[in-house]
């Protein structure tokens, strides 16, 4: 009588999924690519991005004029889910695809779009996001890196940190201060900084799990031409907020990763626990499975909402809070069951544990996300 809640998936998207499954089965590099944290490995991942592009499998929802496949967010979701399920190589273009590119499409000039987007998509140029600083983590309005207007350009002084793929990046989408110090979110501007410019120094940051996917980037008198400014001077906060809203769209790969985490743990329980101990873990596995199911369900619900044109709002904070706690609990259960031998450096579980723990911090700490929910969803007094 009401037609029900089910939103049918168009046949074209199902056909896209079937073709994709077949393509992945044929083309995924057997045994994966070399480690992305090495020079050769990174180059191999760049080449893989070009393979994906040639097949029409990157920039899936980007317009064709920018080199994309012209699909919609449901195509993106189908791809993300299938690619993750097939355990495709890490996407070094992830920041570009999800938020740097879409922000350039919104705020960039036609010249900038032509100059950067296609090369970004094909990983000919690798882009990183330059927002965080030592004194501006959760509090982004505290950005201190200065850009002073000089002739037809800017002179940039300061430091960015937690720059993903900073070690291998060619460009940085940087948030800098063009106004007076202490002006908070006023007086910020976005610049595209060529990381091969004189005065740029990149220092890889070795993280607790031993890898160097992040870097600190120092700017000493770096000259940035004015035509590399993204948006107007002083418009940086609006650009940054738009960028973050793209970052927070539904990610259909997330629940798949949590499912894989749970499956791997269940297999370990069967293989490595004394048989008499297995029964004692049923409940914990089941509780985790319920949360994984809820995560998958919620992702489908959000996807349907956004596909129907509903704005994302503060929804992404909920997802971040729920999924990061779930993943953290899963890796913690693994450590609890199998002891610290599992946490020795070099094991996949060691990497997963530390990466999952970081999930409570990166992209906005759990505390900031809870505050967003309290303010914007619950409307609690401040």
């Amino acid at each position, binding site marked *: 009588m009401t037609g*029900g809640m*089910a939103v049918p998936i168009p046949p074209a998207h199902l056909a896209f999924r079937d073709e994709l499954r077949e393509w992945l089965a044929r083309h995924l590099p057997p045994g994966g690519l070399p480690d992305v944290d090495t020079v050769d490995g990174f180059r191999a991942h760049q080449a893989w991005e070009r393979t994906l592009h040639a097949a029409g499998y990157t920039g899936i929802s980007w317009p064709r004029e920018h080199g994309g496949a012209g699909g919609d967010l449901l195509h993106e979701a189908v791809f993300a889910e299938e690619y993750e399920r097939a355990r495709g190589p890490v996407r070094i273009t992830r920041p570009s695809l999800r938020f740097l590119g879409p922000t350039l499409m919104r705020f960039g000039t036609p010249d900038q779009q032509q100059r950067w987007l296609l090369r970004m998509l094909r990983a000919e140029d690798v882009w990183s996001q330059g927002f965080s600083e030592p004194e501006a983590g959760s509090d982004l309005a505290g950005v201190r890196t200065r850009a002073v207007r000089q002739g037809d350009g800017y002179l940039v002084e300061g430091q960015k940190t937690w720059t993903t793929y900073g070690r291998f990046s060619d460009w940085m989408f940087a948030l800098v201060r063009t106004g007076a110090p202490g002006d908070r979110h006023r007086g910020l501007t976005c610049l595209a900084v060529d990381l091969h410019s004189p005065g740029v120094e990149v220092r890889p940051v070795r993280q607790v799990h031993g890898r160097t996917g992040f870097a600190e980037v120092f700017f000493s008198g770096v000259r940035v031409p004015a035509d590399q400014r993204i948006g107007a001077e002083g418009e940086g906060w609006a650009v940054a907020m738009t960028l973050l809203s793209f970052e927070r769209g539904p990610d259909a790969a997330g629940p798949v990763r949590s499912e894989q985490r749970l499956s791997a743990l269940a297999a370990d329980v069967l293989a490595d626990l004394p048989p008499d101990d297995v029964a004692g*873990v049923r409940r914990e596995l089941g509780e985790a499975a319920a949360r994984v199911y809820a*995560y*998958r369900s919620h992702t489908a619900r959000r996807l349907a909402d956004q596909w129907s044109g509903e704005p994302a709002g503060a929804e992404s904070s909920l997802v971040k809070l729920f999924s990061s706690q779930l993943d953290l609990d899963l890796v913690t259960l693994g450590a609890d069951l199998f002891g610290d031998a599992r946490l020795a450096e070099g094991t996949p579980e060691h990497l997963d544990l530390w990466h999952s723990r970081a999930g409570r911090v990166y992209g906005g700490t759990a505390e900031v996300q809870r*505050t967003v929910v309290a303010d914007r969803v619950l409307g*609690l007094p*401040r």
Partner: protein
Amino acid sequence: MTAGDPPELRLFRPTDAQRELVTGARAVFAAAVGGADDGPRGRSWRAIADSGLLGALVGEDADGLGLGADDLALLTEEAGHLLVRGPLVETAWMAVPALAAVGAPAADTLAAVLAGEVLASAVDDTLRGPDLGAAGLVVVPGEDGDRLVDGAALGPLEPAAAADPGARLERAPDLARAPGAPVPRTGVGALTLGRLGGAAYLLGVTRWLLETTVAHATARTQFGAPIGSFQAVRHGLADVHVELEFARSAVWAAAGELEAGAATGRTAVLAAAVQARRAFALADRHCLQVHGGLGFTWEHPLHRHLKAGQTVAARFGRGRDLAAALGDAVLAAARSAPRSAPPRPHI
């Protein structure tokens, strides 16, 4: 459930028609709970029966509404929010579909239940059910199929202890031996349906707790500021909201799986029921805490929803048992899948 074929991507979203349905049902429920609880034969229950909502899951040819499990989940959440008493889940989710599955031989009974002339109820494995003494028939879920037991054949009844004094639970200790008519297996069975209905009801209870507590935290001032401005209070309530929203997503998704006749329907309902209990348990803890001493007074309505939630959360299986059953499904899937590693970091 974590191996074999990948789970089907099912998108879902309440429609405008469903929102209208909820608004209508809310008015019915609100009118029904307006006065004092007048028991199984009272005006309140009568009003609900008259609205037709009890027949949500059966076709219009049998004087039902021809709705789906997802529609009924939305309605049941409203019932939980308003704390509708009586065998609502037991009737709409369990007895009515069971009678419909029996078909022609039970057509008269079904009509009488839908008209509110015969009261239906159901038990779980604690052999407890609401209003058993007044029930004309009782659904007894079983491993090997469900049975419909005539109200006269229940054997002796005793008052059953429960957290919620308004739940009107009675216990039929000899029910396992009572004669009953087998219900043909047409879907997931009464227990799974009751579980999903209970989970939907629990969503409504939890939503009421959160709304009431947000209002309290906004109005109540201590140390010269509303207590809802203190981070410890805000963050606890934010966590409740998160767990509740994900529970709602799980309930809706599980209802959709039942609608689609998916083979994974039973485990989906287990998952939804566990997540709904998890959300309620967190609300139970934080919402009482935020109310401070006020939450411990009989005059404040908070305890009614807390107790109702505790009773619903223990019905159709305790959370720990449902989780263990779900854990068995995870282990069974792992047995038939190749061993795998956790996912690699995506940065």
